[in-house]
């Protein structure tokens, strides 16, 4: 099974019903599936901090939100993570295309890749790194854990993982 389908199944199993996205090449397939999913309201955001605001509002309204973005967005969203998602104790699964790892063709992407885990660690955000396609099997449990703990949780999915798409 394609990792895109595994991701979709995990979202559906966790009754995720509100997803905001900022695209990345690696995420194209899964974003397309989310857009087609009948029980998920898909709302593209122009910037990831805006997306986190949308997710926070949807959560207040009773939805189970998630954000799909590239790891460069960690640089954009630190304030929103600290002062909104964490401060008010809201769950937010972040499904993150981990650019700049082995297999990356664009040098500039490496510049944020080397800071990604350090920044997430500094924010005390539970972080999972999907490297092999089979790693996606854990996503269902990670999503449940995120909503249970009411915290942002990061899932970094690198280029090797996306070979399973």
């Amino acid at each position, binding site marked *: 099974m394609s990792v895109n389908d595994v991701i979709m199944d995990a979202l559906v199993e966790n009754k995720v019903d*509100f997803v905001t996205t900022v695209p990345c090449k690696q995420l194209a397939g899964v974003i397309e599936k989310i857009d087609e999913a009948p029980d998920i*309201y898909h*709302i*593209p*955001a*122009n*910037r990831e*901090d*805006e*997306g*986190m*605001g*949308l*997710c*926070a*509002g*949807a*959560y*207040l*309204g*009773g*939805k189970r*939100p998630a954000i799909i973005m590239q790891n460069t967005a960690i640089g954009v969203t630190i*304030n*929103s993570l*600290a*002062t*909104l998602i964490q*401060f*008010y*104790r*809201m769950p937010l699964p972040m499904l993150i295309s981990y650019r700049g790892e082995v297999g990356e063709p664009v040098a500039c992407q490496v510049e944020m890749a080397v800071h990604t885990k350090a920044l997430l660690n500094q924010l005390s955000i539970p972080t999972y790194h999907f490297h092999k396609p089979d790693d996606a099997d854990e996503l269902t449990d990670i999503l449940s854990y995120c909503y249970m703990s009411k915290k942002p949780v990061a899932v970094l999915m690198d280029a090797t993982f996306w070979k399973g798409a």
Partner: protein
Amino acid sequence: MIRSDVLKTLIPLISDQLLVTNIGLPSQEMHLLDDQPSNFYMLGTMGLASSIGLGLALAQEKKVIALDGDGSVLMNFGTLPTIANNVASNFILLIIDNGSYGSTGDQPTYSGMKTSLSDVARACGCDHVVECQAEDAFDTVKSALDGDQMTIIVCKCESGNIKVPVIDMDPVVIKDRFMKVVQS
């Protein structure tokens, strides 16, 4: 009229509505003038009141008013195309436009210069944009609440602030009591 005068006139209308109030003085003034569990006070995260408001409006059926400021909308301009293209008929974005960053000492914003927020909202595709003067805020918000159409209100008022204490409520308490109102 300054922002707090506008808010005072609106209280009879908005007291029972779900409000997402912008960081700084809009939150602090609403907290001082009319603290309600239906108020979601933003204590940080400048710029995101309209995004939180839209997410909330899309998620459930009760009316939602995002009480925003010109400086915050300027900070998060990307919100306007998202609002325009994800219409929630129960959503009102009320921008109190005093042409200044009130919470930080009334430094001028571009909305008090050449930039018209209502023109920007229209250009972004928002269908129902109303610009009003402070004196007409009550009637404008009332007709938006009475209607069944997503409305962006740009309410022009004078720059200036009253003295208000900071909000010392715990954010989790703000969230918890707000969510109970949403679910009620």
